[in-house]
């Protein structure tokens, strides 16, 4: 039983994509928010609410698609609270972020208990859609091209974000909002609206990521099930230096480390799960030690914009 058999690699890559999609969505969302200058610590909470709403909708209607929509919507609602409190009123982003995460953890667990008591109803497995030809590729075929449509959506969003940032006025406005909001204001663009858009976008992404975890990943909702994925998403955004492609690579990398257990079991190697679970975080710390100085963050990150304040 070798380590580089096709079975192992397939299992690894499939698992990497499965675990990586939520990270990718969370990371893209946080990247959008941070680009505009809003540090979104509440991302974990948005993911969790997305997971719950997604699960509930999917459970009640039997449609995963509706579940994804509900999940994104749930995340956006939490993001709206952040937008009002932090962007519009100017409350401390970190304090509110912690509050939203705690509140989301409490509310979703509470609601789930009230609805389902101690049972954990399962969702049916989500159908995959195979892309013809490409899904026949060894290893990569199953992992990337034979998955539920939402996976394709997430991958396409990487391209969409790249285009948005590079080739639209909105992308430049987002950049300006995070780097030097006064200049954006002077150019006649509403800074508050731009930042609010970014925060809501982050909520949509994170909510969708959470819904993915519940509907596709686990098939059930368990309290606190996001288990730090939101925070890893924040790290991805901080390390990716504004480039969506790097978020994708990082997400796949971390996804791989998270899925390593199953893959190793397939290969017959027996390393305890808990050690594997340490991998992503250990990797992050290593990268931060080596390149932390250069983790670039927009200058205006974390500070609220007040016109006229010099």
């Amino acid at each position: 039983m070798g380590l580089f058999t096709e079975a192992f690699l397939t299992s690894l890559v499939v698992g990497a994509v499965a675990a990586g999609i939520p990270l990718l969505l969370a990371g893209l969302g946080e990247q959008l928010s941070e680009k505009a200058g809003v540090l979104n610590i509440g991302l974990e909470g948005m993911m969790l609410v997305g997971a719950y709403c997604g699960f509930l909708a999917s459970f009640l209607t039997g449609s995963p698609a509706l579940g994804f929509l509900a999940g994104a919507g749930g995340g956006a609602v939490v993001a709206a609270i952040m937008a009002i409190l932090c962007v519009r009123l100017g409350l401390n982003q970190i304090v509110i972020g912690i509050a939203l995460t705690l509140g989301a953890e409490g509310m979703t667990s509470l609601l789930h208990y009230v609805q389902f008591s101690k049972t954990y109803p399962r969702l049916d497995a989500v159908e995959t859609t195979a892309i013809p030809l490409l899904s026949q590729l060894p290893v990569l075929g199953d992992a990337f091209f034979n998955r539920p449509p939402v996976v394709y959506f997430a991958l396409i969003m990487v391209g969409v974000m790249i285009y948005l940032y590079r080739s639209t006025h909105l992308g430049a406005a987002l950049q300006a909002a995070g780097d030097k909001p006064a200049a954006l204001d002077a150019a006649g663009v509403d800074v508050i609206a731009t930042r609010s858009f970014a925060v809501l976008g982050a909520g949509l992404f994170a909510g969708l990521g959470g819904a993915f975890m519940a509907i596709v990943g686990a098939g059930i909702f368990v309290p606190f099930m996001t288990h730090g994925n939101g925070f890893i998403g924040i790290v991805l955004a901080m390390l990716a230096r504004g480039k969506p492609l790097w978020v994708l690579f990082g997400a796949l990398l971390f996804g791989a480390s998270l899925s390593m257990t199953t893959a190793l079991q397939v290969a017959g190697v027996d390393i305890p799960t808990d050690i594997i679970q340490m991998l992503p975080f250990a990797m992050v710390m290593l990268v931060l030690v080596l390149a932390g100085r250069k983790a670039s963050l927009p200058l205006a990150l974390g500070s609220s914009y007040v016109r006229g304040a010099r």
Partner: protein
Amino acid sequence: MSVEDISVADATDRARVDRLRAAIHMILITVGPVIAALALGGLILIALNVNPLEYYAYTLRRGLFSPTGLQATLTRMGPLLLIAASLIVAFRAGIWNLGGDGQFLLGAVIVAASAPLMTAFMPVWLVLALCMVMGAALGALWSVVPALLRAYHGVNEIITTLMMSFLGVSLANVLVKLAFLDPSTTTPQTRTLPVDDRLPRLFGTTTSSGLIIGLVTIIIVHLMMTRTAFGLKLRVVGANAKAAVHAGLHVPLLTVAVFAISAALTGLAGAVDILGTQGNVRADWNPAYSLMVVPLVFLARFNGFGTIAFVFLFSVLSIGGESAARKLGVPNYFSLVVVAILLIVFGLTEYLEQRRQTIARK
């Protein structure tokens, strides 16, 4: 009385009224958020078909007005106060130490693993003392990397401490399941410290003396931050880093010191929880206290004595909530929600305060 006497009396009266008004105002902005949070929480309870008055009454009865409940509440306060002390040191110095959960668990695990073995050849008091030192030391150790990264490279510590926290929680699990497993039982946990070997109870109650440790520590921390030169230096660094340099303070060294102290206190909290209440660490155990203490410390505006009051309140809610979970079907997640609402209401209060002051100045 002459005219001058009357006007002097007037002035004294006015000063007294002003002070009274200021005191009432202070109480309002401190207690107001609590009442608002409980009220809003009540609305959520209504949405869940639970009578909020019944819930709060039951919580108070079980958490405060019953002898066993009160003792459990006071015991719970021990580790929470230590965590609060840790946060006060960090936040006053301008450091976001959000890695408490990892520091807590590692301190707990090392103590849970060592204590039962040490009692074999050391008197109990020595075991307890050494274990508390070990817990603190491990907690401090766990903050070295984020501390150095922040002090000498300016790397944002929110992320580094959070990552170390997850890492620490996983590592703690690994240690429990692989290194420190109790061979005598099938449940994955560390060896259990016999009740006799734990922190002594207070005066024949079931309250752990961890409470005393917690109270003493937070008062010492409060006094240190507000009355000592060292505490003042930390506060200067937290309030205005440029002024700290200008004043000749050694900022990187002080930063590392803050991390070390703060993390040590959280590690100690883990130790105290094991030595006082838990006795062992079960696999996948993580009470995740750290983030929940954050709002309490903010509400008390980093004042040690105020924090004691808020931690007490939270403990009541927590212990009472655990009972209410069984009786009324409202799981303890509810306290998370109340705490979150509290934090948001606190933020809004601060905002309104600032608005009021800016308007007053005009």
